């Protein structure tokens, strides 16, 4: 009564279940093919939940990460598509809640934006920001590969250590060390320049 288990599973669903079972055993090719197929399915599930088009890609990435972390919980005797659908629906709700919270705090008013000058606006700021950004990127380009990757993912992209460890296939400890060394090197470079 609780879990939705279709009696007649489609050939596609059976194939996906077999791919996921292979992925659980470590078959990378099957896993990559399955995840690629999941992208279009997740988009359909998210759209059906009412996720705005500009947020669909966020749902896709959240679901892909969830599928990866929860892959050991999948039972190949059950529908893979159903398993994916429930995860996609749950992550869609998470994104919708986040969007709802943002809308409650922020006002969309393009007329006001165009009609009233920002008293704190600084025409020179854009130029300064661009210059600072170029300076950071130039300095980062001199860092060793692993340090640059750690700074980029953990600082610029603001991803968690757990997510970064999955994406980079490095341990959290190694990432921390690379981040620490990278930031120290950047500080040293900027101190010299200033």
């Amino acid at each position, binding site marked *: 009564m609780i879990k939705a288990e279709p009696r007649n599973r489609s050939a596609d669903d059976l194939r996906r279940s077999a791919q996921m079972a292979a992925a659980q055993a*470590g078959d990378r090719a099957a896993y990559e093919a399955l995840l690629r197929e999941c992208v279009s399915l997740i988009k359909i599930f998210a759209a059906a939940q009412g996720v705005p088009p500009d947020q669909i890609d966020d749902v896709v990435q959240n679901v892909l990460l969830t599928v990866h972390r929860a892959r050991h919980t999948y039972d190949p005797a059950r529908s893979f598509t159903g398993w994916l659908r429930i*995860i996609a629906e749950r992550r869609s709700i998470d994104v919708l809640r986040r969007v709802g919270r943002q809308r409650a705090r922020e006002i969309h008013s393009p007329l006001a934006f165009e009609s009233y000058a920002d008293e704190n606006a600084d025409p020179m700021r854009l130029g300064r920001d661009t210059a600072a950004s170029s300076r950071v990127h130039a300095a980062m380009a001199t860092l060793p590969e692993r340090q640059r990757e750690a700074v980029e993912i953990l600082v610029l992209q603001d991803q968690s250590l757990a997510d970064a460890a999955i994406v980079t*296939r490095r341990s959290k400890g190694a990432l921390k060390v690379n981040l620490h060394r990278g930031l120290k090197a950047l500080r040293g470079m900027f101190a010299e320049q200033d």
Partner: protein
Amino acid sequence: MTSTSHDQLIHGLSAGLEPVRRLRRPALRAAMWLAVVAAIAAGLAAFADVNAMWQRLIAAPDLWLAVIGSTLTAIFAAFAAFELSVPDTSRLWAALPLPAAILWIAASGLGCLRTWLAPQTHVATMGEARDCFVFIVALSIPLAALLFVMLRRAYPLYLGLTAAIAGLAVAAAAATLLNFFHPFDAAATDLAVHAVAVAIVIAVSSALTRRIFGRHSAPAGVTAARSSAN
């Protein structure tokens, strides 16, 4: 850009893929936790006067109904918590222990209305009621630690609900085991102390949701973060 970032993520995830040990079925894992509780019960029974406990319980229907209620609550809540700990499940599982919990609460409350004292019992003093509180909370700690370690192996999507139902399983189990050392008749003060202890165990479990299941929460704004960085 978007399909590229999906490609990057998929490539990263599949390139770093390691074989995983498939999780056992939730019902089997719940049975394993309940077996540990049963083993603790057997250990406690060795130190308790089981015959006196039996005589106490059968003397008044509300007493044995309350024990049946708390036992069933622990069993059903454990099964519900393990079912909730896998992604493709329904929140309806959380309702599974509720009838037993209602029986437990109703029978305990009815006992307070009884005008006669069950044989071989007395009304607990405040000091004895405090001991009940300490017993429930102290026994809940190892039971909760084991349960949450087992639940963390899975991947719940309803984090708060799973933690609360797990807390209910732990508190009900501890309250059931208390009966080995509870030569007291039902009384409002004792019942209130039990209720507070159970509520604290459930509340602490819920409050620790993020700490317990933190790695299972939704990754926030992956694409947005990447876009802002590019």
